[in-house]
Each structure stands twice: as C-alpha cells, then as structure tokens.
C-alpha cells in the first residue's frame, strides 16, 4: 500500500504525536536547561499532557462508524478516545505526585519515560492489529520496567524493576507465541481478518482455546490478575510510590482496554470460552487478592493485593461479554483511576515525611493531617464499594452485568469478596482515625503539587459517586461501539 500520509490521519494521531514530541522536549530541556527552577519540568509536562488532551478533544474525536487509520493498525473509536483521556489524566496526576521535596537527578528521564509509556498506552487502547498491539505493549512496558527500578540504589526498587521486567518479558513472550499462531491460521495481522479465521467450526475448539489461553497470559499479567499476579506485591512495594500508583491504574486500564477490544473483535465467536476462562481468572483474583491482603503490614503491599482483587471485579465485567459488562468495566476503571491514585498519593505523602510505608506509619493520621486522612478514607471506602463513592457504581454495574447475563453465582462470589475487602479497608480507617500518633512525629508537609493531585482525586471520587450519567454514557458508547466491528 503506497501513498502519502493523509492529513486526516495525522490529525487523528495528533495527540500521540505530540506525546512523543513532549517526551523528547522534556528530555532535551532536562539536559540543556540546567539552572531551571525545581518544578519547572513537572509543570511543563503537565501542561504538555493537558495540551494533548485538548488536541484529542479538538482533532481526534471519535466518529460514528469504525474508523481505521495507519493502514488498519489503529482504530479511532470511543473506546480509544475515552481511554486516552484516562491515561493522560492518570499521567498528569502521577507527575504531580512524583514531585519530591528535594529534586533528584534523572527527573527529565523520569518524565520522558512516563510520557513514552502513556504514548504506548494510547496505542494499546487503539490497536486493531496484533503486531501493533505487541509493540504498543512493549513501548508501554519498557519505560515502566525502568521506572520501577528508578531508585535502584535501594534494593527493593532494583528488585521491583527486575521482577517486573522478567515477568513481563516472559508473559509477553507467551503472548507473542499466541499471536504467531493467530497469524499462522489467518495469514493476517488485523483483528477483523483473524476473527474471520476464528469463526466457529473452522477450527477445533481445543486449538482456539489454546491460542486464547496463550494470548490471555499476557493480558492477565498486565492487569495483575491471577494466576499471573505474583509480581504485583513486590513490584508495588519496591517501585517508587507514584509509579506504583501509575502501574495500578493507568497500566491496568491499558491492559483492559486492549483486552476488551481483542475479546470483542477477535474472539467474538467463542463466548463460552471467553466467559469460562475469564470468570475463572476473576474468581481466583478476587479470592487471592482479598484474602492475602488481610495479612499485610505494609500499605503498598496491601494496595497491591487489593489491586489484584479489583482486577478480579473488573474481569467479571469483561468475562460477561455484554455491552453492560464492558461499560461496567470501563466505568470501574475510571473510578479506580482517581481512587487508587488518591490512595497512592496519600502513601507518597506519608512515606516522604516519615520514610516508611508500613501501615503503622499511618497511625493517627487524622490527628496529623485531617484532610489527608479524609482523602485516604474516601479512597478506601471507594475501593470497598460503599455508596456514595466512585467505586460503588463501578461494582454495581459489573455485578449487574453478571446478573443480567445469568451468571448470578459469579456475582455472589463478587459481592461476598467485596465484604471481605471492606474488612481491611475499615481496618485502615481505624488505624488512621483511632490509633495513637507514633512517638516523635510532627505535622506533615504537603507540597502544593501533592495537594493539587489529592484534591483532584478526591473531587473525582465524590463526583463519580453521585453523578453517574455523563461517565456512564461515555462508557456505554464505548462498549456499544465495540460491538460494531
């Protein structure tokens, strides 16, 4: 296919292109502008991310029908548009939380890598081709490997980066093997062509199941779902806290975006297979995540296990395969973004002040900084799925979709797990509000960027807890459009 790059296509890709330019710019500035004010790069990055958001709104709005660009590699629809917003917002919040009280070296690289990862995530959400998807996964994951190990002088961080890298490499290898089989049976790399080859009765079920399992490995890793969740606790604990927050929200969202798309566009002919495997993964994730979180003493590890459980809930929505399930998963991810970033932001504040992210360090947080305790409390209640916080409606939709599809047993397991989850969230609330303040701890310094980030997240948690319609409308549109290949 020869030809020039049509302007319309470039316009639609303008946000992604500007992300790459932004990454380069930040890197360049960090090398050239030595005498800059300490937070200059942070604010430039945020301005750049917001500009990309604006460009997306101006130029890259989705259109009614399926719209493929770059020779069928990327699809512009509501799903990719919505998730792009999620990634950009998540990155901006992460950048805000990453501000350190004393600027350290490598800030330019840190930000550039983060932006590159966001670029990859946008590609992941829009991929309509397995080769593009694989590369998008690589470009998303590679900076995250490095970012997880960023504080490599500390053993835990180096361990986190190494574990994430090894696990990621291994699972993506398995997934690529699955992709190669997909290519083998269809001779094409585009989703629609592969879907045609996977039509029922053209292949033995065992083969389709085998390929699906191989491909699923990579996705389950990316969203930290069982049985490929083992990396999460160690990586979340060791990685710098903002990166852990970013991993648990935006990276997970990217994985789910790609998963939802591939489920609907490639494996649409095998609903029972999809349901069976994903439901099993969902149940395992919920059980493992919730029950292992009960014993944790380190807040970041607890949030990691909680994150595994949350992935389980979202998988329920993905497993069901109905538009309601997909929209529920998407709404959940939006709510989860602000919720978890609030939680990790609070952890970042406390660990930056006290040097510890053990649960004991949060003792009596209410007395040391009431606003921070309130934000973290709201995040915990949202994670637990209590009205009127954001997480409630996400869980509501997901379980509603399970009931609607007739999989009531799955919903029962889900709601019972939600109650178990509440136990450790309530325990954290108790530690914050009722336990005595540790000896010799003073007031907490909260620099402005942290305040801004936590405020935005808290507002998000409340708004998404009361006002459902606009977000649900978008999520529903995205889910509906998935069905019109």
């Amino acid at each position, binding site marked *: *296919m*020869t030809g020039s790059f049509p302007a319309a296509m470039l316009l639609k890709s303008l946000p992604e292109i500007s992300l*790459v330019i932004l990454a380069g710019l930040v*890197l360049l500035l960090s090398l050239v502008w030595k005498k800059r004010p300490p937070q200059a790069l942070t604010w430039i990055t945020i301005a750049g991310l917001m500009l990309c958001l604006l460009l997306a709104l101006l130029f890259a709005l989705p259109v009614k029908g399926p719209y493929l660009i*770059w*020779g*069928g*590699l*990327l699809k512009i629809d509501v799903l990719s548009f919505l998730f792009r917003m999620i990634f950009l917002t998540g990155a901006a919040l992460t950048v805000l939380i990453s501000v350190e009280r004393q600027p350290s*070296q*490598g800030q330019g*690289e840190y930000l*550039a*890598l983060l932006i*590159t990862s966001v*670029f*990859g995530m946008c*590609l992941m959400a829009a991929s309509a081709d397995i*080769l*593009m998807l694989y*590369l*998008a996964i*690589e*470009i998303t994951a*590679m*900076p995250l*490997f*490095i970012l997880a*190990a*960023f504080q*490599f*002088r500390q053993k835990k961080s180096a361990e986190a*980066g190494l574990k994430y890298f090894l696990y990621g490499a291994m699972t993506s290898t398995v997934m690529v093997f699955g992709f190669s089989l997909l290519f*083998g*049976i*269809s*001779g094409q790399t585009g989703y629609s062509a592969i879907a045609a*080859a996977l039509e029922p009765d*053209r*292949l*033995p079920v065992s*083969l389709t199941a085998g390929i699906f399992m191989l491909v699923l490995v990579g996705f389950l890793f990316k969203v930290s779902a069982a049985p490929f969740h083992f990396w999460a606790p160690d990586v979340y604990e060791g990685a710098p806290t903002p990166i852990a927050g970013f991993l648990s929200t935006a990276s997970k969202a990217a994985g789910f975006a790609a998963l939802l798309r591939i489920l609907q566009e490639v494996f649409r002919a095998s609903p029972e297979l999809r349901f069976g495997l994903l439901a099993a993964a969902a149940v395992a994730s919920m059980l493992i995540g919730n029950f292992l979180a009960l014993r944790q003493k380190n807040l970041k590890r607890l949030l990691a296990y909680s994150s595994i459980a949350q992935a389980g809930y979202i998988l329920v929505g993905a497993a069901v395969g109905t538009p309601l399930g997909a929209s529920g998963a998407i709404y959940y991810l939006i709510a989860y973004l602000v919720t978890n970033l609030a939680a990790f932001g609070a952890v970042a504040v406390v660990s930056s002040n006290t040097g510890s992210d053990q649960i004991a360090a949060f003792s009596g947080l209410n007395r040391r900084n009431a606003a921070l305790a309130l934000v973290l409390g709201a995040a915990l209640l949202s994670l637990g799925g209590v009205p009127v916080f954001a997480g409630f409606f996400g869980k509501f939709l997901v379980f509603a979709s399970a009931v609607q599809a007739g999989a009531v047993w799955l919903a029962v397991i889900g709601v019972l797990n939600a109650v178990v989850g509440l136990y450790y969230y309530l325990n954290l609330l108790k530690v914050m509000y009722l336990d005595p303040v540790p000896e010799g701890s003073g007031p907490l310094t909260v620099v402005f960027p942290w305040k801004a980030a936590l405020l935005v997240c808290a507002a998000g948690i409340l708004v998404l807890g009361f006002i459902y319609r606009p977000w649900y409308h978008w999520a529903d549109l995205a889910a509906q459009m998935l069905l019109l290949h």
Partner: protein
Amino acid sequence: MSPAVIIFIVLALVAVACAVAMLVSKNAVYSALFLVLNFATIGVIYLMLGAPFIAVAQITVYAGAIMVLFLFVIMLLGGENLRLGEPLRGQRLIGLIFGAVLLAEIVLLLIFRSGMDQMVGTLTIDTSPAALGLEMFNKYSLPFEVTSLVLLVAVIGAVILTRVDPIRRPGKPDQDRKDQSGRQA
C-alpha cells in the same frame, strides 16, 4: 532419499548435538560457542524452508549480536571458571521431566495430527527481503517507528540504571558526601 532430506538430517543432528553439548559443557564459554553453532544450523534450516530473510536475521542477530554479547558478559564476569552448583535442588530433574513431557507432546501431535491440515493457512506471502521491506515501510511503518522508540527507551534505561553520580568539582561545597561509587553516605 533426496539431497534435501540428507542435508536436513545432518543439520538436525548437528543442531541437537550442539544443544546437548551446550547443556552439558562445564565451561561457560564453550557452552556459548556451542549455542552459536546451534543457531547457525537453525539458520540454514530456515534457508531450506524458504525464508531467506529470517535465516540471515537469525545469523546476524542471534548468532552474531546476541551471542557475542553473551560472550562478552561471560568473559567480563569470569564465567569460564564458574562452579557448577544448584541453589535450588532438583532443578535438573524437573527440567528433564518437563523436557520429556514436551517431547511426548510433540510426538503425539505428530502422530495424531487430525484436523491440522485444514488449519494450515494458505499463505501467499512473498518472503523475500524486498517484499518484507515494502511491508515494513508501508503497512507496518507505525510499528517500525515505535520500535525505534523502544530502542531509545532501552538506551535511556541503560544509561540511567548504570549511572554514576558526578564527582563534585573542587571549590563547590559538598551538600551530601558521596564516595566514588556514587552511593549516598
């Protein structure tokens, strides 16, 4: 027996022998060199299968770049003198068992290949380097560019993760004392 089959048998024997030798050899450098030979024979097999580009890629990238890197690292770390030890016991046994299982699976698949013929896609892809190049720069130009970005990220990562903190110039007050290796005091 046609010449192709004879060549294949020879190459296959060489490949398997090199692989076994790689596993069994006590010297890391010898192992690496056996692996190079193994890769080279696989490359020739690819050539026989009619995939010239993959064959050349195999030899230049795998046997060339990657294995040379292996050798560098082994020699830097003094790997030729490593003792044979197993921190986790029973790895060999498990490895042998899994290998046997894999072998059994392959054999079974070969014997019972029902329904597999219909799965073989009728690929009419031109595998010559020219065709590959056209595809890469036309249809897959975006992934290609993204790949370059991946490489850039890898370079940045390598630089960051191995950086040494700069030595302070004399005359500047030391805020935090750092020793030569860059570790914070």
